[in-house]
């Protein structure tokens, strides 16, 4: 099977290790990975801040870049939810504004074949045991858009539970937002910081070494709060845990 990796602009720029981990993991599972170089950003930051008209050309660009692939895999619940949940809505809004079906028709092909990484592993490849080895205590934060936007359910936890050496610890208040929320973190920084601090305190109470999530944006906010609060915990993307093996263990 050949898939396109939609890495997302944040991961591409700030978290290339996550991208390398996805490539390593999928290749190990026999999937042929392509990275279309023309990819940029799904437009979520624009859309969610109120700039829907600025987001539209980015969505069109996404469809142009990824439309030809059999499946599109992304290690971001949030950007995945943008494509799956909000691209159809952008099409509907354009129609409601009397701009016809063009946008909806352009975006439609990529919507059903875009998968968040854990969803792709469990639903499409049908695996929960991916041959990973990660000898650490881990607590899992199900990010809002992964949890409620995409309905990832227990897929990430099932994958983590099957990792050799990994001890999974329950995160109190797991389904509560960490407070990132894109531009929310800037526009309402006091509330955002308070939410982040509570999330970090809950994570710390588990005594785990690592806080894991399927979205680096949330991890950036949580991790930035962790170092500021000097907790000693590390934020790690789930792809890096699943890519880790006994031969090549991740930190």
């Amino acid at each position, binding site marked *: 099977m050949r898939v396109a990796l939609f890495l997302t602009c944040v991961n591409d720029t700030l978290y290339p290790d996550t991208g390398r981990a996805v490539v390593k993991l999928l290749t190990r599972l026999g999937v042929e990975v392509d990275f279309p170089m023309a990819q940029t950003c799904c437009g979520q930051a624009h859309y969610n801040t109120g700039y829907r008209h600025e987001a539209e050309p980015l969505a069109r660009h996404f469809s142009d870049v990824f439309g030809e692939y059999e499946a599109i895999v992304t290690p971001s619940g949030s950007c995945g939810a943008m494509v799956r949940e909000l691209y159809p809505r952008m099409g509907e809004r354009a129609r409601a504004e009397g701009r016809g079906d063009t946008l909806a028709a352009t975006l439609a092909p990529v919507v059903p074949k875009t998968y968040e990484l854990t969803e792709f592993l469990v639903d499409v490849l049908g695996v929960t045991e991916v041959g990973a080895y990660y000898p650490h205590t881990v607590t899992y934060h199900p990010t809002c858009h992964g949890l409620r936007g995409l309905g990832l359910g227990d897929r990430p936890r099932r994958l983590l539970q099957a990792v050799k050496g990994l001890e999974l610890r329950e995160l109190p208040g797991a389904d*509560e937002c960490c407070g990132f929320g894109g531009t929310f973190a800037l526009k309402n920084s006091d509330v955002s910081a308070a939410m982040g601090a509570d999330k970090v305190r809950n994570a710390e109470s588990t005594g785990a070494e690592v806080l894991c999530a399927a979205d680096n944006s949330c991890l950036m906010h949580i991790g930035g709060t962790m170092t500021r609060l000097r907790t000693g915990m590390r934020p790690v993307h789930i792809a890096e845990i699943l890519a880790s093996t006994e031969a090549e263990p991740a930190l």
Partner: protein
Amino acid sequence: MSGTFVGMPAFPKAAQEAVGNPTLRANLRHATHTIRAKRAAAVAEVSDWAALREAGKQIKDHTLRHLDRYLVQLEESVTAAGGTVHWAADADEANRIVTRLVKETGESEVVKVKSMATQEIGLNEALEAEGIRAYETDLAELIVQLGKDRPSHILVPAIHRNRGEIRDIFAAEMSEWGRPAPEGLTDTPAELAEAARLHLREKFLRARVGVSGANFMVAETGTLVVVESEGNGRMCLTLPETLISVVGIEKIVPTWRDLEVFLQTLPRSSTAERMNPYTSTWTGTTDGDGPRTFHLVLLDNGRTDTLADEVGRQALRCIRCSACLNVCPVYERAGGHAYGSVYPGPIGAILSPQLRGTGSEIDASLPYASSLCGACYEVCPVAIDIPEVLVHLRERVVQGGPVTLEGNRTVLKPAKGHAAERAAMRAARWAFARPGALRAGQRLASRTRRLHPRTLPGPGRAWSGSRDLPPVPAEPFRDWWQRTNGGDAGEGRAK
């Protein structure tokens, strides 16, 4: 809406106080988490919850779509049952009508049962200006009134107060308004409730005019419905000679059968009860029982304008259960007052800017008072997609667009203060539409990465004040991909 909230600063500033107040945050955290867990359990008991939620949504949407028809039917039914219907286009008109009706009775005081509509229009202040004193009789409303405070929750208006604070308010203020608090009042719930009971009972027995709201109005019979826990509402509805109910026009359900759905979903969503202790229904007037005169004031106050917006109108489905407040992580930290309205929390963040417009600083900031985590949508018993409306209203704030104001279609200009953001969004879109430009930016960031400061100037300070930024890697992913052809395993795959 209420004059009490005019001139509120934008939400981020208003929220600062609550975020920095440990007592308030502890009160809010305790209360919202307790009720959140109970609600989840009460909802889980119902096997057809998803179907009830869908039914509630559909009934409300149907009613809103044919609101004109149902309002006329309601007026006919209320009139036939001996009541009088008054129509109020806005707050001023509603206040004038109620003030006149009270004056016509010759009374100078009224008892009130929790009515958000009267708080929305600032009725108490309007009555006071005409020499009429309004006594709040719902326990939480009483605490708010005695404390010269504002409500901070839809269902638990005094949620921000703990027992000790309530004791102090009762001891200091009750004598000012009527029967004083008993000597040596402690902060045990039973003693506080008894003090309130004695204080209120005197008012119930004396009052000749009652003012109420309603949770629902049944069009087919002209019946109004109040759902409550304390029984104070029933006292207000049955003891006075004149009853004036002020109700938003969106509160109609067509039939009693439709009501059945909401009498299941409302208590479970709001107080986590299978059924609320008191459900009072009243239809016009009856000789020898209850009020001899009944007036219904139907309030628009921005509702038909909201109805004209095809994305935003779903806010009018709201049955004021407050489940969205109790799960909202932003409400939990910011408190209800920061929303600058009688409708706080996620529902307030979409209702207030629609009812009042986005002209003021607070209303323009409310659509941003959310991380879009979606917890509010998940719990809403009438499936209001609050995140969708928030984003829609953000668009209105930053880009302007068509709206209906006082019944007229007009095009709104963008709100002030977003020019820099708009320019940044345009620049980002420009770069993202050109992979080459994005790549150049990434490379520049990588090359200068040792020069990046730990704390940022300007708007970036909002981030770096409480969080560390991640270090920029030496090489963006796409450069690694191209350099290595996708790593060891990906030979020959780069496009």
